[in-house]
């Protein structure tokens, strides 16, 4: 995925909350059902008036199978996007791996000595109930970007771990993680 340094220890892998992926699945499921419902509720007279030389039911199956194939591929593209879009917290840095679709990928690294502040943003009913939100990692220096862990599950725990890693990194004499 990316190169780790010698003796670098991974403390946590963070992904977006699973609830967001479930929303994608539900949306695709609705899209899968809509054509079937249309076929059921459109009157027979409409189908009979279609000037198609061939078996209309087989045509319906053909188009519906292709539609389901498109949604099936879209589901796995979304899953791949969800699965490969992750944040890695190690004892030396935070790595943001941003997967955008299938053909765009960006890896941003923030060394722990650059981190100035860690903030949490949980807004909305569902994020509050499901306990997920954004973790904003603010870094020093013009050349390093801030990292935002989007919709992380249990953001308080993520923040606590980053601050603990930061403390251990800045004060190694106090003992490791």
């Amino acid at each position, binding site marked *: 995925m990316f190169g780790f340094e010698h003796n670098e220890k991974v403390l946590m892998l963070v992904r977006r909350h699973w609830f967001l992926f479930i929303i994608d699945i539900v949306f695709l499921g609705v899209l899968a059902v809509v054509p079937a419902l249309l076929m059921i509720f459109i009157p027979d007279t409409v189908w009979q008036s279609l000037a198609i030389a061939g078996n209309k039911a087989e045509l319906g199956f053909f188009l519906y199978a292709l539609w389901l194939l498109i949604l099936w591929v879209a589901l796995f593209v979304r899953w791949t996007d969800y699965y490969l879009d992750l944040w890695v917290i190690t004892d030396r840095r935070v790595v943001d791996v941003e997967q955008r679709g*299938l053909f765009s990928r960006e890896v941003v690294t923030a060394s722990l000595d650059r981190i100035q502040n860690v903030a949490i943003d949980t807004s909305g009913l569902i994020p509050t109930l499901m306990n997920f939100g954004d973790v904003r990692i603010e870094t020093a220096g013009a050349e390093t970007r801030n990292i935002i862990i989007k919709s992380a599950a249990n953001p308080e725990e993520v923040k606590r771990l980053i601050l603990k890693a930061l403390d251990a990194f800045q004060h190694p004499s106090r003992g490791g993680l």
Partner: protein
Amino acid sequence: MNGEVVFTPAFPVLFDLFAYVFTPGALWAVFYAAVVLFAVASGALLYHWLRYNVGMFRTLLVIGVYYTGSAIFLSTAYASLLLF
């Protein structure tokens, strides 16, 4: 016309166009285009799964589920097209 009223329903005229769109030749072209697009998308997915895989068993499981489902939809489309 001699004053007689000619009723031209809108739907059937529009629906006549389907006879030109849904011909076997056009549907086979759609099917082949879908197969090509599917192959490209599957190749890209497979590349990501194998390059960034976390566990080989999980990766193989995902690949198996993906291609099994795809094979069902593609074979259904193919069989329907043959019977059309």
